[in-house]
């Protein structure tokens, strides 16, 4: 979790903007936004939040948190794809923006271009539904997530939770499974929509930067899976997922030379690997 004091110490007399993720998409950590907002006010620095993962899921109050600019989107809250929003504070202070898209002067000169009315209506409706359901949904999803977490972590040894244990999005779970590689695990449960920090299909072989920043060892970072629960997740799906995950992890551990070495008592950190 971001330490507000680190933010305070990072501010110089040249700083004009602080930009923080309200909640992290990989590990679900909810940051101390209110404390950071206070510091921003003290120092007279504008405070922007990327609240894509937070809006509609947890209470977000720009006044209370001292947020001056906030980005969020429709497609993360069961609204249409292709529409997002930027909240821009008008009072105390008034935030002035230079448009990136200029021309007709729409949206008070901030973004030119005819508004996409159907998308906006869909976005608005999605927000309305989230607001109506938030309290009950949060309770329901958190219970399902906690059950998923307990079901998986109690059934196996050497599984580690990534991210804050309590200050996390109700529908997010991120777990590392020692000695098992993330992509092979996803293949073993391919009928379930999950994601991992694997990167061997991206340009580099680097695993998740978020996990690296947390100090998670590179082998464990290659072994992490993100579970996302939402409006349409059912209890049956959670039980099914627990069962499939246990089977897949055990299957892969049987196949894993690292698991074998660990069982023999070898400390993997001391091994000299012949990487190519």
């Amino acid at each position, binding site marked *: 979790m971001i330490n507000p004091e680190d933010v305070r110490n990072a501010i110089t007399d040249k700083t004009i903007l602080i930009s923080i993720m309200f909640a992290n998409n990989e590990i679900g950590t909810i940051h101390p936004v209110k404390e950071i907002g206070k510091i921003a006010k003290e120092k007279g620095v504008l405070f922007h939040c990327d609240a894509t993962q937070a809006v509609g899921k947890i209470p977000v109050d720009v006044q209370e948190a001292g947020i001056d600019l906030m980005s969020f989107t429709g497609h993360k809250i069961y609204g249409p794809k292709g529409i997002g929003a930027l909240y821009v504070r008008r009072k105390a202070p008034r935030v002035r923006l230079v448009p990136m898209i200029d021309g007709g002067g729409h949206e008070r000169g901030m973004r030119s271009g005819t508004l996409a009315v159907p998308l906006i209506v869909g976005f608005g409706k999605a927000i309305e539904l989230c607001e109506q359901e938030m309290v009950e949904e949060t309770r329901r999803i958190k219970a399902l997530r906690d059950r998923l977490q307990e079901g998986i972590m109690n059934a196996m040894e050497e599984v580690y939770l990534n991210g804050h244990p309590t200050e996390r999005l109700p529908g997010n779970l991120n777990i590392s499974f020692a000695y098992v590689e993330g*992509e092979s695990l996803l293949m073993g449960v391919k009928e379930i929509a999950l994601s991992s920090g694997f990167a*061997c299909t991206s340009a580099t072989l680097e695993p998740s930067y978020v996990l690296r920043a947390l100090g998670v060892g590179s082998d464990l970072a*290659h072994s992490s899976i993100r579970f996302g629960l939402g409006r349409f997740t059912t209890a049956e799906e959670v039980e099914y997922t627990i069962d499939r995950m246990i089977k897949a992890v055990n299957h892969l551990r049987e*196949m894993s*030379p*690292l698991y074998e070495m660990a069982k023999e008592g070898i400390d993997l950190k001391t091994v000299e690997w012949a*990487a*190519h």
Partner: protein
Amino acid sequence: MAYSEKVIDHYNNPRNMGSFKKEEDGVGTGIVGAPECGDVMKLQIKVENDTIVDAKFKTFGCGSAIASSSLATEWLKGKTVDQAGQIKNTEIVQELNLPPVKIHCSVLAEDAIKAALNDYKKKAETETKPEESTASTGS
């Protein structure tokens, strides 16, 4: 990502998954890769009279890595030590339909084969040396 049928098959039904004891006679062990890279392959061969009679693998890595090493053990069985050294990663790529981004898995499998062969040859050398010295004292 879309996985090829053959790769999924090797994941569900790995061929020759397991281990020999390293010290066993005629066993060559190759371990290549590193956990930080997300790929570690252990390949073992059992050799009798210059022929590979059995092979085993264990792999930490993506589906393509598992399939490449599993396939390697299938191909190794029945080959002579020299023939085994001829196995090329490109043949693995072709057999498993590996996409370009997964070619390095086949390269690692070829490295693992060579490492196992080298280990076997090194052990075979040290085993024959004591026999030579007793022969010379005998004559």
